[in-house]
């Protein structure tokens, strides 16, 4: 365990050293990330210009959920980045190199693609939660920070599980799949109260692609929404299950890796 923590530190140091040479890149990335999040937020404000409540949720609550959503998403985007996996590691065969090193291959891939600018999104998310939380008059309890930590980690585990499982499909199919961008769209639904969707989509977002657990369910714990409290408590369990599914699919897929070229 301390071995892996040490590696995280080393790779981050390396990232910084590399990025010293491309400083402009860093800021471009941070700003484009923020603009992307800002448009989503503006969308929420536009909706609430036309209505006072969305399926029983006020503007302040929806904004708070959005703030919470940004926190695990930032952490996930920073440490778990599988976007170019098929292209870089399978088609170009870089997986060969990864597999001849004595650390878990998936972990190495995560580390080689760390993207710290994404963490700025998490910070903004916390700020949004703080502002809208105080406007809503939400109490700050002793358990707020521990719960925030546990729920963030669980949500990151859900993301990781889903994306790892889907990415491991590239071990079976030669062509890079277009399923990841689709997923990226679906996960956006999790940041709004699921109760506004019809039953089928609710089931989908809760049990099949549990993106409701990375936004609205855990956030409802802080919003003191009784009807979703049990779901909030369930978040770590869902995180564990999906992470296990993802890792199993991955480890199984790696055995099918065929290498590239000669």
């Amino acid at each position, binding site marked *: 365990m301390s071995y892996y923590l*040490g*590696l995280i530190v080393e790779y981050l140091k*390396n990232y910084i050293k590399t990025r010293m*040479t491309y400083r402009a890149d860093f800021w471009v990335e941070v700003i484009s990330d923020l603009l992307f999040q800002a448009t989503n937020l503006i969308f929420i404000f536009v909706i609430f210009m036309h209505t006072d409540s969305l399926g029983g949720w006020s503007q302040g609550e929806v904004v708070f959920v959005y703030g919470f959503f940004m926190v695990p998403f930032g952490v996930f985007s920073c440490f778990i980045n599988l976007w170019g996996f098929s292209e870089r590691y399978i088609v170009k*065969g870089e997986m*060969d*190199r990864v*597999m001849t090193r004595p650390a878990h291959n998936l972990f190495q891939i995560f580390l080689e693609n760390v993207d710290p600018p994404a963490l700025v999104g998490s910070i903004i998310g916390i700020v949004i939660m703080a502002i809208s939380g105080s406007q809503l008059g939400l109490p700050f309890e002793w358990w707020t920070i521990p719960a925030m930590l546990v729920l963030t980690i669980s949500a990151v585990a859900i993301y990781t599980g889903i994306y790892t499982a889907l990415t491991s499909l590239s071990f079976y199919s030669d062509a890079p799949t277009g399923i990841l961008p689709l997923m990226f769209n679906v996960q956006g639904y999790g940041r709004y109260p699921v109760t506004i969707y019809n039953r089928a989509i609710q089931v989908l977002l809760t049990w099949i692609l549990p993106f409701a657990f990375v936004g609205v369910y855990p956030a409802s714990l802080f919003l003191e929404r009784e009807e979703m409290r049990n779901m909030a408590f369930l978040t770590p369990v869902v995180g564990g299950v999906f992470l296990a599914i993802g890792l199993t699919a991955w480890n199984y897929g790696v*055995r099918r*890796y065929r290498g590239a070229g000669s």
Partner: protein
Amino acid sequence: MNAIEVKDLRKTFKVQKNREGLKGAFQDLFKRQYNEVAAVKDISFQIPQGEICGYIGENGAGKSTTIKMLTGILVPTSGHLSVGGFVPYEEREKFVQHIGVVFGQRSQLWWDIGVIESFQLLRKVYKVSEQDFKRRLDELVERLQLQDLLNRPVRKLSLGQRMRCELVAALLHNPSIVFLDEPTIGLDIVVKSEIREFLKDMNREHGTTILLTTHDLQDIEALCSRVIMLDDGRIIYDGGLEELKNRWGTGREVQFQFGTGTKLAQLQAWTAGLPVEWSAENDLGAKVWIPLEINVSDVLGQVVGKADITDIKIIETNTDDIVRSIYQSGSAEKKTDANDVTEDESVMTHV
């Protein structure tokens, strides 16, 4: 003890068949057809500890596939495999701690950071202690003369410089078995011989077992006591390099330059009784083919003194020629069997 043990190792790949034309492409979309292609077909060999073994074969013969199975990257379809006491694909992370791998066509190093920083990172990945790392690095840097390169980013190194750094990167954790996949590809002659010397020394000093694939047979001649030759997924030769030369090098060629015109018929008459074969371009130059079992001096004895010779050149069949003819025939065994049966004929039909 054997460092590498391979028994009936086999690897088959499923290859998708693409049907022709637009219609075929649509059919492929719904129902794919696959071909099973065996890249490595039930090969067996053992490599004892401390041996340098060359692994050669044409492109696509299955060399890289074997190396990838031996290093734990690929899972074999069937067969037994033991490298340094481990089954590579089963305990990969523990196993790779004991091996070093260099892929000549791929880099181990981080492109944008200094060479030394890459080494530091690998030190952490391989859990090498600070002291061991320093000792080992000093030794390697000294030996490969990398002092001036350590702080440069990898992308600014020449291929030769980079390859020497790759070697260091693969050896920092002092592996007992080293796999080299075309380590000298694209390098100039100076760097090539430097790397060969280095590998030889390492083998001598640390008893490191080395398995290398290459297309440059001089690598093999300089380094390997043993060669395994692969063709179409099967081992067609496994043994010493000298033996290979003896078995396949069917003879030597001697070229004569004459001061005065000498007729071919005359030359043939002088060596009548010896199974040699003369050929002449003109009266002033002739070549004679001498099979292995005849001494060159016997033939020379018949000619020297009788003819007015200005120059003699003796040409041994080199390994390149031998290997080329084996590749072309596709087997080292078949031909030698044929040799035994119709020895005279094969001597006479030398190309």
